[in-house]
């Protein structure tokens, strides 16, 4: 697969029509694949394997506007939704990107392997659905589907919604009900839920990784960085304000969040931030009918769209929110 992609890219980059390729390179640690801009010479460094979980679409906001030439992007099926959403919001000019849809059968979360008790990992090889893991303490085995990234369990399907060409095969890896965790939270009393989120959000170190990786958080200047907004220093004032940072962020991306799961994937503290967004997505679907942000370019999301059939505000009462 990696070879096939590199060979195809060599062809495309040969005549200088494209400014480069956004893809993945080897990161600092063995299983880290980091986003990188390649030119024809550097293609040897390109990696594409089961560890390329990161979503590259957001990098195109900067890269595509920097050059007059077109740029090539490698996007997995789920990354396409973010790409489309950014095009809808005029943050990426679709005409300046050549999208190669790359096949994906789910990406591996090394943390999950470690959490399964496998320590001292030195190498991972794949054998169908089985992962053979070499460790300092001998070889171990684990089922591939047990260690997929959280986002792969909410897989939106194997179709690339924006690709100019597709390389490789994809498989859907969705594990059934993606709202189960949301419903578990909903079933709690308000006090329990508040405690749950206080517990989770108090771990936040305000590293901003969630915001910086989020394709919906593409603002040129975030309100939390803007000295004129009046909230610049607030979000770090105390742990309560830190909680508000995440809640406000969830509202800022409401209706536009494609549920790509990057926020939770990059969180060094392991906060399940995607559940905040997924709760809002569930609400939007319930109130306005099923909606998937980034399904296509030019969509109008339900929160900025108004029809006479829309729910009246009194829906809050009927759903028990007025009590």
């Amino acid at each position, binding site marked *: 697969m990696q070879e096939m992609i590199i060979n195809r890219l060599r062809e495309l980059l040969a005549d200088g029509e494209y400014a480069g390729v956004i893809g993945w390179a080897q990161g600092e640690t063995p299983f880290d694949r980091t986003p990188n801009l390649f030119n024809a010479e550097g293609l040897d460094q390109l990696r594409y394997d089961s560890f390329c979980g990161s979503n590259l679409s957001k990098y195109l906001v900067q890269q595509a*506007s920097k050059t007059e030439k077109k740029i090539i992007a490698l996007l997995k099926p789920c990354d396409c939704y973010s790409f489309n959403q950014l095009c809808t919001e*005029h943050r990426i000019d679709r005409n300046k990107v050549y999208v190669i849809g790359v096949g994906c059968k789910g990406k591996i979360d090394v943390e999950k392997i470690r959490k399964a008790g496998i320590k001292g990992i030195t190498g991972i090889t794949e054998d169908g659905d089985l992962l053979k893991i070499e460790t300092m303490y001998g070889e171990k085995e684990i089922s591939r589907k047990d260690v997929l990234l959280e986002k792969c369990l909410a897989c939106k399907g194997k179709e690339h919604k924006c690709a100019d060409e597709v390389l490789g095969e994809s498989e859907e890896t969705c594990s059934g009900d993606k709202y189960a965790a949301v419903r578990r939270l909903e079933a709690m009393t308000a006090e329990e839920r508040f405690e749950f989120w206080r517990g989770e959000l108090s771990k936040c170190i305000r590293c901003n990784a969630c915001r910086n990786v989020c394709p919906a*958080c593409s603002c*040129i200047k975030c*309100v939390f960085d803007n000295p*004129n907004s009046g*909230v610049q220093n607030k979000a770090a004032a105390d742990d309560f304000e830190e909680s508000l940072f995440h809640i406000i962020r969830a509202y800022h991306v409401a209706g536009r969040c494609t549920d790509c799961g990057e926020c939770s994937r990059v969180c060094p503290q392991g906060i399940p931030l995607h559940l905040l967004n997924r709760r809002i997505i569930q609400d939007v679907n319930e109130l306005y009918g099923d909606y998937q942000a980034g399904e296509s370019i030019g969509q*109008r999301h339900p929160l*900025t769209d108004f029809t006479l059939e829309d729910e009246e505000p009194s829906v809050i009462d009927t759903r028990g929110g007025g009590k």
Partner: protein
Amino acid sequence: MQKIGVFVCWCGSNIAATVDVKAVAQALKNEAGVVFSTDYQYMCSENGQAMIRQAIKEHQLTGIVVCSCSPRMHEATFRKTAVSAGLNPYMVEIANIREQCSWIHKDIAEGTEKAIVLARAAVAKLHKNAPLTAGTSPVTKRALVIGGGIAGIQTALDVADAGFEVDIVEKSPTIGGRMAQLDKTFPTLDCSACILTPKMVEAAQHEKINIISYAELESLSGFVGNFTATIRKKARFIDEDKCSGCGVCTEKCPSRKGLDEFNMKLNKRGAVYIPFAQAIPNVAVIDAEQCLHFRTGKCGLCQKNCSAGAIDFEQKDQLIERKYGAIVVATGFKPIDASAFNEYAYNDSPDVVTSLEFERIMNAAGPTKGQLIRPSDLKHPHEIVVIQCVGSRCTEDKEKGKPYCSKICCMYTAKHAMLVREKYPDVKVHVFYIDARTPGKNFDEFYRRAVEQYDVDYIKGMVGKVAVEGDKLHVQGSDLLNGEQVHINADMVVLATAIEPDPTARSLGTMLTASMDTNDFFTEAHPKLRPVESPPAGIFLSGVAQGPKDIPETVAQAGAAAAKVIGLLCKNELTCNACVAQTNEAICNGCSQCEKVCPYGAITYEDKEIRSPEFRGIRRIATVNEAICQGCGACTVTCPSGAMDLKGFTNSQIMSEVDAICR
């Protein structure tokens, strides 16, 4: 740094009884930037205003905070005061310590504390106020009246008489509305058609009035003085310009299955029909659901027989786009569906009728040509029972009835009883009632006449059940005054059904962003002082759309709405709101979300060169048309980066207020 003056009003005892106004004035002296603080009995009085003017000059104030009533009351007053002392009007902030404070608190300590907090918030905001200048927008000198009943007709006539163009949009094929269906009108018993049809004709002949019948408002954009309406004129399959209203088509039509809406579906009509003899426009309409041509592709008898060549089976819905300065809602009412009241056997017997059905039966142009006969066997009834408050004042079951009094039923019931007794002295009329509500000029006299002169049997109490027994209707009710059960074997039962807003009201209200109450009646801007205006500027209310009314009240309100419309249309331009949105170009992402939520279409995008620390180059930026922006703020809350801000209500001003409150 601002130099701020604080003026605390007592509002007589309205504020001073629950708020220690002196303590408020004293506390505010310690706020940063406050150089003068005082209290006075009536700040809005000439003396109070003089005090403000003097303080502005004496202390060289740059802004003032008035702690008083709601800004809806006196903000304009104090802005003018500030202007006369040389300040910009937008350097005035009102702390509402009456509606939001003294009126809702009983404890003076609590009230005072809250008043201080509200005043502090106003001071905090004022620190960030900047002088603003308002623009102007032109006024389109044409009004749109939605609904062609007596309310809409009267408003249209009054506006047109003042020299302005008026379009009436009526959803049915003719204007006239409910009043056209009435036989006689209380309390004078004059014929409804005789007094309505001259008005209809006057409207039709008026050179300033344009009647768009069989049409509905499809969408509306714009704002006061500058609305753009799209009106869907439904295909009636008749060329209105060619049709002479001769009625030959209606006679030739072989289909006889359509139910006559004008006669409350008590008789059948052809698929091509003219609703009633005095219909305006006097043009036929084809009911495509019943028409054999549309159902089978054959027939076409009407087309063959129309000497004017007016039948056009190919006609399509037509969209008309027009600009208006003002819009009047006159959508009226309909009686509620009586089928929910099965205890009165409405679904079981055709001889149980609603009052409006009874009205048609009594009318000379009705299904029985005005003869009082039972729908079931066409026999003359001898005993009639009227049940009042069917669905009105019904607080227990909201699904079935309405919590409000429909206001007209007591009077029309007395009218029906009197008409029957006058024409058929042999018929006994019993009326079951909760109360006889007859406020209104000559109303109680009218009701007394029914009781005393016409010997109508009024029974205070409600009916428990109506049962069909053979060809009789067994009515079982209670007589509360005599404390006994009453059993009457009636030939006919009339249900004085409640009235409700026309079913189109809710969606229309949403389209106009007009507020409505839980019963779907349009809410007025102020229940006492602005009874014919809807809260959004430029939308006016006429007739039952606003609440149950009889004809005299409807006509009076229609005239009042017209006066408001005329007052608006005779202006050449309106002063715009100075508190409009503006873009911070350095941080606008150009994501288009604000454009999508803007209800006025005030936001467009331009590619602009941006030089900011974060970005250099050409970028797509939102721009606000200040003449169109109404300052609703929808864009500011949608913008994720905070690039959209509302002048006079900036995000940082609001944050300062919140901070001052939470301090």
